[in-house]
C-alpha cells in the first residue's frame, strides 16, 4: 500500500510538550474547579485552583522563555495584523494565527484574574476561604467571592468562543487544530521560513520548579517557612 500524502505536504512539529500539557491540563482543571465549587467541596476547589495557578504561572514563564511558537513576542500581534489576517486568511507564522493569539491572551488574563479573586474570596459563613483572604476584610472577601462567581461566566463564554473558533477551523477550513494540540504536528504546504526554535527540557524543568515554588508560597498565605 502506498502513502497517499502528497509529497509537498510536510508534517511540521509546531507545539512543544510543555505547551500541550499545559493546554490539556487547563481543559481538565477548569471543569474540575467548576464541579468542586458546585458540589461545595471547597477543599478540592482550592487544590484545583492551586494547580491552575501553577499552570498559568508556568505558561507566562514559557511565553518568555519557551519555544518560539509559545512566546508572546512570536504570536501577539496588533490590530493591523489581525485585520490583515482576517482579510487574507493566511498568517505569516506557523504557530498561533493573530486571531488565535487573542484567544490565548484573553484566556490567560481571565484565568489569572479569576484565580486571584479566588485567593482572596471568603464564603458567606466565614468558614471557607482562599489562602490570602486574611489580608482583606470580610466585606472585601465577600466582594471577591461574588466577582469570582461572575467572572466564571465570562470565562465560560470565552472558552465557548475559543472552542467555537477551533471547530470552525476544523470543519470549514479543514485545519485540524485539535489534533495539532494533541500530537504537536501540523500539515504544512511547505516548511516554515523561520523554523521553530524548541526550548530545552531543562528550561521547562526550571520553569516548572519556579511555578511550583511560587504557587506553594501563595497557598501558604505568602508566608515563608
Amino acid at each position, binding site marked *: 500500500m502506498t502513502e497517499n500524502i502528497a509529497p509537498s505536504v510536510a508534517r511540521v512539529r509546531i507545539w512543544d510538550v510543555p505547551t500541550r500539557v499545559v493546554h490539556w491540563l487547563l481543559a481538565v482543571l477548569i471543569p474540575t474547579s467548576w464541579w468542586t465549587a458546585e458540589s461545595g467541596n471547597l477543599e478540592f476547589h482550592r487544590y484545583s485552583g492551586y494547580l491552575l495557578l501553577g499552570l498559568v504561572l508556568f505558561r507566562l514563564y514559557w511565553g518568555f522563555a519557551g519555544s518560539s511558537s509559545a512566546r508572546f513576542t512570536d504570536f501577539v500581534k496588533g490590530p493591523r495584523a489581525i485585520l490583515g489576517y482576517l482579510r487574507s486568511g493566511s498568517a505569516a507564522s506557523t504557530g498561533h494565527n493573530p486571531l488565535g493569539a487573542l484567544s490565548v491572551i484573553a484566556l490567560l488574563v481571565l484565568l489569572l484574574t479569576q484565580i486571584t479573586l479566588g485567593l482572596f474570596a471568603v464564603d458567606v459563613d466565614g468558614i471557607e476561604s482562599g489562602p490570602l*483572604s*486574611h489580608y482583606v476584610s470580610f466585606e472585601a472577601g465577600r466582594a471577591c467571592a461574588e466577582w469570582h462567581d461572575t467572572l466564571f461566566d465570562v470565562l465560560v463564554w470565552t472558552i465557548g468562543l475559543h472552542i467555537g473558533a477551533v471547530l470552525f477551523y476544523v470543519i470549514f477550513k479543514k485545519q485540524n487544530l485539535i489534533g495539532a494540540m494533541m500530537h504537536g504536528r501540523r500539515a504544512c504546504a511547505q516548511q516554515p521560513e523561520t523554523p521553530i526554535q524548541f526550548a530545552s527540557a531543562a528550561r521547562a524543568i526550571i520553569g516548572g520548579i519556579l511555578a511550583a515554588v511560587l504557587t506553594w508560597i501563595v497557598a501558604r498565605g505568602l508566608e515563608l517557612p
Partner: protein
Amino acid sequence: MHVRFSRKARSAIAIMTTLSFTALYADAPTAPAEVQKARHDHYHELGEQFKAVRDLSRSSNPDFAALEKSAQHVVNASIDQGQWFPKGSGPEAGKTRALAEIWTKPAEFEAAQKMFSDRAPTLLTAVKTKEVNAVRSAFKEVGASCKNCHDTFRSPED
C-alpha cells in the same frame, strides 16, 4: 368643666402612659421583613466573627484576647439563634435563603441548631486553653455544625 390634677397625679399619668406605650410596642409583632433583615444581619456578623477566628488562629502565637471576644460572640449567637426563626419569617414573607423545611420539620431544625449550640462552647474552651491547635480543630467542628444545618435548611446561593 375643668378637671384639675395635682402635680403628683400628672406625673403618675405621664409615667403610666409612657409605660403602657412602651409595653405596647415591645409586644407588637415585628414585621416579617424586619425579622428577615435582622436575621441576615446576625448571620453576617457571625460570618465576620468566624473569619476573625480563622484569620487569628493562622498564627502559631495568636492574639488570644481577640480570639476570646470572637469565640464569645459565636457562643452568644448559637444561643440567640433560637429566636431568629419565628413562624412567618420564611420564604412566604419575602426573599430569604431560609427554607420552608425549618418550619415544617421543627424537630430536625432544632436538632441542627442544638448541634451548633453544643459545639460553639468547645471553641471558647479551646481558646481559653491557649492551645492554637485546639482552636483550629474546634473551629473545624463548629464549622461542620454550621454546614450541617445549611445543607438541609438553607437554599443554595444563586
